[in-house]
């Protein structure tokens, strides 16, 4: 069911990675992503794998959860691998049939891209698994705040982000309920002809839109009646603090980047 979605989910715990400053975590994730694309050789891929595995171990989150986050992206991964397999050239030809041709370079490329994307998914899942949505948006706001001098609405953006994140579970629950209610009236969603299915979808989307608008309206009223007026002069309950852990993590990451650049 819809409940089982894990992307963007947060698993509260008390590990080294959990206790990192979210700002540092975002920056580290960015560095990690860029580094993965700098490395072109297999050895750099192995080093990337070691780095990712280390981070995962320090997060105390079960590897099973990461496998779960890769699963829904499997078709996309397979398509990428197949394309690379047939379309990349180089090296000896291993297999040829009419216009299809597999070369050694193709095999290399397809494995390379597959592993690289999996590492990317694991790395970014690690960020959301270990950081609560609230600290994530806090961090985004702080990281973007220098831009607000040029009129960039960083606080508003972060607020929108946190509201959107806050309502994901609510809307999933709501969708579940509406689906059940319409099924109880005999709506067909996964059986029947295309026309009846479309009709069934309409019976779910309309109530869902209406309730989203209603919720938005209620929330806006509630915010206004509490005199919400944006980010100016606002203090916060959770102050972000940089600790020795953050320096360790950053050093470790930069070391990793350095090695990758050196290895090539």
């Amino acid at each position, binding site marked *: 069911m819809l409940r089982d979605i894990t992307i963007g989910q947060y698993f509260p715990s008390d590990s080294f990675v959990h206790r990192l400053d979210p700002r540092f975590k975002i920056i580290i994730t960015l560095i990690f992503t860029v580094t993965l694309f700098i490395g072109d050789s297999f050895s750099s891929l192995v080093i990337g794998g070691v780095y990712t595995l280390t981070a995962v171990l320090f997060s105390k989150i079960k590897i099973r959860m990461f496998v779960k986050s890769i699963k829904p992206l499997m078709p996309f991964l397979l398509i990428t691998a197949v394309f690379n397999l047939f379309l990349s050239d180089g090296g000896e030809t291993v297999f040829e049939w009419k216009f299809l041709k597999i070369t050694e370079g193709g095999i290399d490329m397809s494995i390379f891209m597959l592993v690289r994307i999996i590492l990317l998914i694991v790395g970014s899942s690690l960020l959301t698994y270990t950081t609560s949505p609230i600290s994530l948006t806090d961090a985004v706001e702080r990281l973007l705040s220098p831009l607000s001098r040029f009129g960039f609405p960083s606080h508003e953006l972060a607020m929108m982000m946190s509201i959107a994140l806050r309502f994901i579970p609510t809307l999933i629950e709501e969708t579940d309920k509406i689906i059940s209610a319409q099924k*109880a*009236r*005999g709506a067909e969603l996964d059986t029947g002809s295309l026309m009846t299915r479309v009709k069934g979808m309409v*019976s779910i989307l309309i109530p869902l839109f*209406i309730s989203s608008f209603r919720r938005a309206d209620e929330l806006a009223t509630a915010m206004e009646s509490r005199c919400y007026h944006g980010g100016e002069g606002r203090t916060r309950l959770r102050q972000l603090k940089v600790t020795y852990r953050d320096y360790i993590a950053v050093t470790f990451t930069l070391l990793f980047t350095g090695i990758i650049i050196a290895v090539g």
Partner: protein
Amino acid sequence: MAVLETRNLTYTYSKGSPFERTAVDDVSLKIDEGLIIGVLGHTGSGKSTLIQHFNGLLRADSGQVLLDGTDIWAEKSRIREVRFQVGLVFQYPEYQIFGETVFKDIAFGPANMGLDESEIKGRVEQSARDTGLDMRLMERSPFELSGGQKRRVAIAGVMAMNPRVLILDEPASGLDPRGREIIFDCIRNYHRRTGSTVMIVSHSMEDLACIADKLLVMNRGRVFCFDDTERVFARAEELVKIGLDIPQVTRIFLELKKRGIDFGKEVYTVGYAKRVIGDYIDYIKIKRGESL
């Protein structure tokens, strides 16, 4: 003959995860045709989960649900038929409304049943009468109506399928006393006209006391008791212990009993309380040798 029966029904949420919770635990019930049954229980007692098994929205991990003696899952492809026979009205059903007009929304269920135009029209009009909706409302948009009217449109939408078992989850929640009364009148109308079995889920005994023939009390996913309304109220003190709110009159009479005035009867409606007190006064008068 029992129209609906469950055998050792068990259902667990999020099985295998740390959030695992058994919501329905070994429930075996026999529900006779034509009765109005109140389903009582504290929040999280499993009552809402249980009723979703009756029309196959949820499928139990183990155990069976029998409709007229046959397992509803015997033929998986016929589960829609079951949903037409066991109508389920969810909590806050007005949030499921989507039709452009009141008529079209009520007609959604009957249309899904594949009935012809004239039959659909007849069904919609009949359930509009049951729920006291004015025919002039039929061509209006349901979103222009009041909260109470919307709720009645949604209930009419399920009644229009003419289910043999009508189940309503907290049909009166969030309404004022007048609104609640109207909803219960709608349910009575439907019951009287069709002779169907009706199940009403509520955590308020006050509402159920006046309408239910039998009460099913759920506690922690298990059947706490399932008996005639009076007999269930005879166990009022136990009901309080499992976190249920007993009617105010019943609470007064329990308090009186504690203070030594025992009427010897379980009182759960105001009308009945009046009679009992009247009898008691007469009895005292006779005892003192006074004339009535």
